[in-house]
């Protein structure tokens, strides 16, 4: 699992943002993580504490927004929520292959002081 590497990147972006906007400290990070991204939120939290240590983000809070997976039905031209890539469209019962959301691994925002 690569949660540490991903978290390290998030904290690096947060710290860079803090520096370039003249902030003294990172108070919080908000991440957006898709349910099919392959990373485990619990492991992200664990990695967060380790990665923040000794940086401007030490002691910062971590908020994780979980993004449910959703597929696109080309027939109905609508998105529908799906637990994985196998679900069929609730309207037309076709299996859709196009994942629209659920793989996100993003930093949404940071809170600076």
């Amino acid at each position, binding site marked *: *699992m*690569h949660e540490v*590497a*991903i978290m390290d*990147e*998030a904290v690096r*972006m947060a710290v*860079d*943002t803090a520096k*370039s*906007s003249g*902030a003294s400290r990172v*108070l*919080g990070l*908000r*991440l957006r993580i898709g349910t*099919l*991204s*392959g990373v485990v*939120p619990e492991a992200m*939290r664990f990695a967060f504490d380790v990665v923040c240590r000794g940086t401007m983000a030490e002691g910062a*809070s971590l*908020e*994780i*927004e*979980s*993004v*449910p997976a959703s597929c696109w039905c080309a027939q109905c031209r609508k998105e529908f929520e799906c637990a*994985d*890539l*196998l679900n069929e469209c609730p309207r037309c019962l076709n*299996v859709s*292959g196009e*994942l629209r959301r659920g*793989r996100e*691994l*993003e*930093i*949404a*925002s*940071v*809170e*600076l*002081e």
Partner: protein
Amino acid sequence: MGGENVVIGDHSHDHEHDHHHEHGHDHEHAHGGKTVSLNRSLLEKNDRLAERNRGFFKAKRLLVLNVVSSPGSGKTTFIRETAKKLGKKLRVGVIVGDLATDNDAAELRKAKIPVVQITTGTVCHLDAEMVSKAAAQLDLDKLDVLVIENVGNLVCPADYDLGEDLRVVLLSTTEGEDKPLKYPPMFHSANVVIVAKNDLAAAAGFNRQQALANLKRISHHAEIFELSSKTGEGMEAWLDFLAKQREERSNG
């Protein structure tokens, strides 16, 4: 640099409450902080390097494969046999990611295949930077096809583009036909699925019909080859496909 949409003193994180939060924590930061929207992918660095690799490989007229599977599904054997059989037609070089040992690289070297080993330590996937460094150690001008053997893992490598042309996912007949359903993102991202160790299908009680049905559901866009690296059965079709892919790309 990021930092667009700087909203000073804004604490109204407008929560969409259909997105369930992981666990409650206090949103009322008592400090006079400012929220800066970033909305950036945590994989952007790798994605950028992967694109650079892709451009570089293209200029070298290389066909690049990223081979992934569970541990022990037969990647090294498959790559070795592919390289041997392509033999005089196309020259193959290999980059191998392995947790600790040098075994896979040694095995390929024995078969006189140019190989670079990346010792990944505790890392669970290869990334574009590792591949670019490893590729620099190969004489790419002497190669037509570059095969990257990723770390045996069906979760983590799915997130990391290496700059490959084709993602090749192995499913061996000894590991069960429901694998594609358990690892949808990886199988979904496959350009090619190899049903490997086909010589063991009967002995393993492999339900071929079910496996293909599962693959069709998940790996919509993938070409599927059923083969055995050991007996060579089914290899011809795969090798023809590769030759054609390489042809198309070096003309394009």
